[in-house]
C-alpha cells in the first residue's frame, strides 16, 4: 500500500476515536484489521491524538500477543499440540512442516509462511490437526505432512 494511503487510513481510524478515553486497544485492533498488523507509522498519529508517548504505546502494543508489529505471513499454519494430537505425533508433524517450509535452521526467514502452536480446539477426531489460514485439516499423519507442506508452498508461490 502506498505510504500516503497508510497514513490516511490511520488518520481516519484515529479520528473516529479522538477525544475518547480507554480506546487504545480498539484503535490497535482497527489498525490491525486494516493492515494485518500495526505499522510503525501508526505511532505518531496515535501518540498525538491521545497524548501518549510513542514508546509507551509500543509497550502496550507488544504486551498483547494478538497484536503484530510486522506484516503477517500469507499462510498461517496453526499446529495443535493438545493431548490427542500430541499422542498422535504432532511434534514430529510440526518438525516436518517446519523443515519443509524452510522455517527452521538455516532455511529460516520466509515471511510468507508462519507456524504457531494452538491449543486443543475440540477437533480431536482429526488429530493430528493443522489449521491452514484458519481452516482445520486432519488427520495430518506424519506421512501426510510432507504433502501438506508442498501444497502450502505452492499456495505461497502462486
Amino acid at each position, binding site marked *: 500500500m502506498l505510504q500516503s494511503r497508510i497514513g490516511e487510513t490511520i488518520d481516519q481510524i484515529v479520528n473516529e476515536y479522538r477525544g475518547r478515553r480507554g480506546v487504545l486497544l480498539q484503535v490497535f485492533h482497527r489498525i490491525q484489521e486494516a493492515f494485518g498488523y500495526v505499522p*510503525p507509522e501508526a*505511532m505518531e498519529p496515535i*501518540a*498525538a491524538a491521545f*497524548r501518549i*508517548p*510513542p*514508546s*509507551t*504505546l*509500543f*509497550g502496550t502494543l*507488544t*504486551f498483547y*500477543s494478538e497484536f503484530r*508489529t510486522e506484516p503477517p505471513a500469507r499462510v498461517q499454519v496453526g499446529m495443535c499440540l493438545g493431548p490427542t494430537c500430541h499422542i498422535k505425533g504432532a511434534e514430529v508433524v510440526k518438525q516436518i512442516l517446519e523443515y519443509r517450509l524452510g522455517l527452521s535452521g538455516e532455511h529460516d526467514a520466509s515471511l510468507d509462511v508462519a507456524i504457531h502452536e494452538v491449543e486443543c480446539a475440540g477437533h480431536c477426531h482429526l488429530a493430528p490437526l493443522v489449521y491452514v489460514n484458519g481452516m482445520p485439516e486432519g488427520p495430518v499423519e506424519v506421512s501426510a505432512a510432507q504433502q501438506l507442506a508442498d501444497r502450502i508452498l505452492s499456495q505461497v508461490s502462486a
Partner: protein
Amino acid sequence: METVKISIDGQEYEVEKGIPLVLAAERAGVRIPHLCFNEGLSVFAGCRVCVVNIEGARGLPTSCTTPTADGQIIWTKTPEVLDMQRGVMSLILADHPDRCLSCHRQEHCGIQGVCLRDAVVTYRCLTCAKNGRCEFQSTSEEMEMHRYPMRYYQERHSWYGPEHKELPIRRENPFVELDFNECILCTRCVRACDEVRGLSCYEMTYKGPEAKIGTSFGLPLQGVGCDGCGACVDVCPVASILDKPSKWKGVADQAVSTTCTLCSAGCTLDVEVKDNAFLRAAANRSDGANHGVSCARGRQALGAQSSATGRVGRPLIRRDGKLVESTWDEALAFLAQQLPAYKGAFASIISSRLTNEDGYLLSRFAREVMGGDAPAIHTPVDDSALVEPLAGMLGVAASTNPLDDIGDAKCVLVFGSDPQVSQPVAAWQARRTARFTGGTLMVASPRQIELNQQAQQWLQYRPGTESALIAGLLSTILEENLTATEFVAANTQGLEALQASLAALTPARCAELTGVPEADIRSAARAFATAPGSAIVYDAGITQFTNDTGAVSALVDLALLTGQVGKPGSGIHVLRSGGNTQGLSDLGLATGAVLTTLDAARSGQVQALFIAGADLAGLDATRNAATAIDRAAFVVVAGTMLDATAQLADVVLPLTAPLEQAGTVTNSERRVQRTEAVLPAPDRTEPLWGVLQALATAMGAAGFQAADANAVFEQAVQATPAYAGLSYGALAEGGKQWGAPVLYGDGFPGGKALFRPVTLPQSPVVPDASFPLLVAIGYEPLAYHLEVQTAREDPHSRPWDDDVLQVHADDAARQGVADGDRVRVVTQHGEFAGVAAVTTNGLPGVVTLRLPALEDASVITGAVAAMAAQANGARLTAGRLEK
C-alpha cells in the same frame, strides 16, 4: 516532619512517618539491599530484593512498598530474610551476563582480576564499562552472592554462562549509549524519563521472558523525543544506559557539586573528576534549582572548556604584529602604561557566563578607572527587551516567581519560546503541569516545539504577530468579564488606557491578524483567566523585533488583568538568555548593548575595547564584529582560548575556565548560587576578577584589593541594594533567591502596577511578489551552546546536522524542493544557504533558519546578518527560496 518510632534489628530509631521503609532505614544508617527502588522515583516493587521481616505482617514484605508506621518491629538480617533476599538476587543474576558475581572462586581472583576458572572472553565486570561504579555489582557483593549456593540455577550459570540475549548495542545517540544485555529490568529508566523528564522515551516492551526495555519500534532515542538529559543514565544500576562520551573512562576520584553556567536555569551538577580532569557530570538531586533535572548541554559542554586544546596558557602581548608570550607582571605593566591614554574612550564586553564577581569588578574598572560605561553583557540572544516591562510596569527587572511555580501553576502559557532549548529546566516544569498536576499547558508558537507533545492547546500564530495574539487574549478577558476586578482595582493603574488601545483589537480582528482561530483565542483566554494559578513563560524568542518590548508588556498586562502576580503557583517567568545574565544585570551591567558598543568602536568613538570571555569574531553570528574590533586602537581580550577574537587583540589575558573558578552566579529565578573550583586551574590562568584587581591596583586605583571571590562578592553585595543580606557562606547548598521568592506578595514597590497600552510593532514585515516568504529564525536544540565548546575542538563531534532551512511542504512543492536539497534563502539583505528540511510543522509561507551556532547576541545582525532588517532590529524578514 512527622516522625514515628520503629525498631530495626533490635535498635530503636525515630524516622519520618509514611516514607518507604527501605529509605527510612537507609537514612538511619541501616542498609537494606534494593535494586528497583530509587529515591525520587515512584515505587515499582519489581526486584523483590528488599524483603524484610516485619513482626505481625504476613510473609516477608518488600520494604520499598511498606510505609513507616509507629511501633513497627523490623528484622533485616534473619536467616530467613537473607535466604529470601539472596534467592531473589540469584534469579536476577541468572539473567545477567556477569559470572564473577556469583562465582565461588571470586575470593581468589576478585571480580576485577583475571579469571581463574574459564579465562575465555566473557561478560565480566572486569570488561564492563560500569566496573567499580555499578550498583548491581556493589549490591551483589554486599549480599555476598558468591557464597550463596545458587539454588535456582545451579552451576549452569557460573560455568559456561547463560545464553546471552545478544541484543544489539545501540550507539546512535551522541550522549546516551544503550546495551540492554546487562539490563535487570528494574524500570528505573522508564520511571526516570517519565517522572523526572515527562518524556517517556522508554517502556517495558514485550512480556514474559521476552520482556525488555525498549523504545517505540526500536527507534534510536533521538527518534522518540530524547534530548540527552541523562536522567536515565543517572539511575540505571547496571551498564545498560551510560553517558556515551565518558562510558569507558572509569571511576571518578571525586565528585563536586557546582552550578552550571550554560543557561539561566543554574542547575546544580555533580561534576566527577578523574586525574584532575573533567570526567562526567550528573544532575544533583537535592533541592537546587533543578531538582535532579539537567540537560545535555550542561553535562557535556561545561567540562569541555577546561580540557580544550588551544587554551591560552600565559599572557600574550602583540609585538611587531605578532602575539608573543609574556608574564603577568609584564602584561599588567604594559596595560597600566597603555590604558590610561584611552580614558573616556573605553568600552567593555563580558560574556553572560562569567561570574558576578567578574562582572562587578569589570564594571567598577570600566567606570571608576577608565571613565567608561558599564560593560555590555554578551548573551546568546539579545534579551534586553525581555525585562524592561517587568521593571517598568511591576518594579523589578526579573522573574516574579521561582521556577517551581511554573510546575505548580494550574495553567501555563509558554509564549513564542522554546524552553526546551533556552532553558530545559523550565520546559520540564511546564511539562510537570501538563502531566502530573492536571493543569493546562498552552503553547503559543509559530512552529511546533517539543512541548507541543504535552500541550493541551497550541496557538499557531504568524511570526511577528505576537502582540496581536496577546491583544486577542486581553480583549477576550475584558469582553467576557474575566478580569480579576478586585486585584486590578487595588493594585493597578492605567486600565483605561489599556482598554482604549484594545478597542479596535477585538478577538475577531486579532484572529484575522494572527491566523489563530477566534475560538482558540477565546478558550485560551478563558483557561488562563479562570485557573486558580496561571504562569507565563517566555524567552528571547517572544519578540521578532529586538528592540520591541510590546509583546512582553502585553504579557505583563495579561498577568495583571487576571491577577496572576504576587502569589505562588503563578507569575511571569522570563528565561534569560545566558547563564548569568540575570546576575550581571542585577549588578548594573548592560544587556542589549553589544551591538552599540561595537558600533561605537566602528565609528571611532570607542578606541580601547576590553572583551572578556566572548568570542565575538569567531562566531558565525558576529563575524562582522571583527571589523569593529579591528578599528579599535587597543584591544584587550581575556579568555580561555586563542580564538578568533583573541587573534585580533593587542593583549590576551588567560582566564580560568568555568569549572576552575569559585564565585557566584544568579539564575533566572533570582537564585544566587555558588560555582566551585572543581578542577585545578592551569598555571598562570587567573579569574577575571583577579586580573582586574591587579590591573586596577597597578593603575593606582584604590579599593580593588580582595583576597578571594568571597571578598569580592561581599563588596558587590554592599553596592547592590537588591542583594542586601546575602552572604557568600550562606549560598552553599542550593543558593538563595534575592528578594522574596514570590515578588509583589505585599504590593508593588511603586504602590501600584502599571498597565501599558498594547501597541503593534511599527513595521511588520510584509512579503511581496519578489520576496514571497517570511524568513524566521529557529534554534537547533542540540547545537545551541554546544558547538562553541565542542565542535571547535573536534569538528567531528557535531551531534547535529548542517545548517537547516525548514521549509513548509506546500512551499517546497511549489518550488520543486525536496527534503535534503541544498537551497538558498535570498532576501533583500543577503542570503543564507543550507539543507532543506521539508516539514508540515510550521506555517505555509514561512521558512525557518535553524542555526547551529546560535551563540551570539547579534545573530540578528550576524549570520543572518544581513538578512534581517537592521533598521528595526527584526529577526524576521521577507525572502524567497532558490535551489
